[in-house]
């Protein structure tokens, strides 16, 4: 076998320029796939991290029907304390759940005593929220640029940056929030603006923050109610599995009509970025398809030329008794060797490229988020996958020319001019 590969390599070196050009082309294809996968993958991971860790959370549980009416922020589709306790029990029993946090989503009128405008608010329990969205504080700016130990205390509010600018509200200023509760009655409360928050991708990224207890008071909830329970799991890779487990556990709770009481969603169904993430995946697959086409066409071309140029040689091999299988093996080894050399070169340069991109980090802006640093990484499994595909395609592309070589009649091949 080693001898066959040795002969294959020497045959490849016979046509140095052709082999070099083909190998370069395949190397370039692999390099592009590695760099694109690394960059796109890290961009996707970073953006998902930004969205889930600073605002949305990885999963959310609501009362059934809330998400379909999420744009109107309904206050009548809530989880009462009994329902919350049921959810809490399920979450506590699931070892994959790391943290959870109750939230109330509401819209209100914000007044600085001279102007009034609409505001969407995310009422949180700051001590729990920080474990569910550990980066939530990174988007916030507080007095003297110092982040307090507890993001919010009752009576405090954090307002979106643009809203604060538009209404000329400064940190420390008093504001009034006026909101309708689910029965339609109006209530108002005074707050102190303690911080501003930068917006993030999507409608949920333009919300202000207030304490959940303030929201319950503002909405005159006689008994504590929450709109959603946001949660974080221990291993993000297991998102789908944990989602299925929790969905199953929650499905046990049904109402009198026999329908589910709760609904659970992953970040993918809650954020428009999931479409971009899917597009990134699609583009990565497209890159891989292009690479496959490059490998297929270039190796097929080289091997076909190789067979046509060596007809007499094939005839000689066949005449001296080399079996058709071994002749085929020789040509397959040649194609495989070409693929292998290119794969090694492509992987080496690709990994080197990723290494340099990590040293000279790529700075970029996305939406309102600027100064984002891209640190591309590539999984070893991805490299193995790409390499396996290239090698497989190399053999596949060599198959037809190799088969043709093995089927040549020695008497015809020897007489070939």
């Amino acid at each position, binding site marked *: 076998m080693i001898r066959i590969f040795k002969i294959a390599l020497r045959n490849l070196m*016979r046509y140095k320029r052709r082999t070099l050009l083909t190998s370069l082309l395949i190397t370039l294809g692999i390099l592009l796939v590695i760099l694109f996968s690394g960059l796109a993958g890290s961009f996707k991971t970073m953006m998902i991290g930004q969205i889930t860790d600073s605002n949305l959370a990885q999963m959310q549980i609501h009362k059934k029907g809330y998400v379909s009416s999420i744009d109107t922020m309904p206050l009548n589709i809530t989880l009462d304390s009994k329902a919350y306790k049921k959810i809490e029990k399920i979450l506590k029993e699931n070892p994959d759940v790391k943290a959870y946090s109750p939230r109330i989503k509401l819209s209100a009128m914000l007044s600085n005593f001279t102007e009034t405008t609409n505001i969407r608010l995310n009422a949180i329990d700051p001590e729990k929220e920080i474990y569910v969205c550990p980066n939530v504080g990174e988007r916030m700016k507080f007095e003297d640029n110092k982040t307090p130990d507890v993001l919010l205390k009752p009576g405090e509010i954090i307002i979106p940056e643009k809203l604060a600018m538009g209404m000329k509200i400064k940190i420390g200023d008093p504001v009034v929030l006026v909101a309708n509760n689910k029965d339609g009655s109006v209530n108002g409360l005074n707050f102190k603006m303690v911080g501003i928050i930068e917006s993030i991708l999507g409608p949920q990224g333009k919300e202000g923050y207030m304490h959940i207890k303030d929201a319950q008071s503002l909405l005159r909830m006689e008994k504590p109610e929450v709109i959603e329970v946001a949660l974080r799991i221990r291993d993000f890779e297991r998102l789908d599995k944990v989602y299925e487990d929790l969905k199953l556990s929650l499905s046990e709770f049904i109402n009198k009509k026999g329908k589910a009481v709760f609904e659970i969603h992953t970040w993918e169904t809650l954020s428009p970025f999931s479409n971009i993430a899917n597009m990134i995946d699609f583009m990565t697959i497209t890159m891989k398809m292009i690479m496959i086409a490059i490998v297929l066409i270039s190796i097929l071309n080289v091997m076909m030329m190789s067979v046509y140029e060596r007809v007499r*040689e094939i*005839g000689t091999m066949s*005449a*001296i*008794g080399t*079996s*058709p299988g071994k002749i085929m093996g020789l040509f397959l080894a040649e194609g495989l060797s070409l693929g292998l050399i290119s794969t090694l070169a492509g992987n080496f340069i690709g990994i080197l490229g990723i290494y340099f991109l990590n040293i000279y980090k790529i700075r970029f802006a996305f939406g309102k988020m600027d100064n984002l640093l891209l640190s591309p990484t590539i999984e070893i499994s991805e490299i193995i996958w790409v390499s396996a595909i290239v090698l497989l395609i190399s053999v596949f592309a060599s198959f037809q020319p190799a088969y043709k070589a093995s089927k040549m009649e*020695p008497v015809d091949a*020897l007489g070939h001019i």
Partner: protein
Amino acid sequence: MALVQVENVSKIYQTGEIEVAALSNINLSIDKASFVTFVGPSGSGKTTMLNLIGCLDKPTRGKVIVNGKQVNAFNRKQRAGFRGFVLGFIFQSFNLFPVLTAYENIEFPLVMIKNESASKRKDMIMSLLDSVGMQDQKDKFPDQLSGGQKQRVAVARALVTRPKLVMADEPTANLDKKSAVNVIRLMREMRDKYDTTFIFSTHDPGVMEEAEVVHTLVDGKLV
């Protein structure tokens, strides 16, 4: 018993609607360890005759029996196996593999056909290189050898599998007179040393003289 028996063999090539008889009703037998040549002008059927005996082609009619086997009844795979184990080939254009050294060219059939161990291969090749006087040139590639040296390597390659019969189609056509005679003499020496039957074709009178049995073909018929 003869090593080669050719019985009522005809070979007809079809070119469109035209039939060309390359060989017509040939009968002959060749003994073991003989040194036989087919002579005749171009187009007389020498190469076709060698191709049929060498299992490279099948006759249109008749039987070809080599080493007791009716080779014209073999399928493609059987013919390849038979050629590898029973026959050796020497070609007019040497047909050495350009990417292999002289040593590796001789080794090629042992690797691809016989699967001999490395040490046994080395012994066999070195002994043959010595026999053909090419030991000091063993690491050279074909393009570094002269025509006569290439044909010596080809003779060694044909003999390395210890075949019963070596076929050589115009082995001296691309050589100068001196080298041609030297190669034919080398082949005869090898016949003497290994008891291998040699069948070759030529139209060179100087080379014909070296043969022990001469079969003359004219227009596809033995005369």
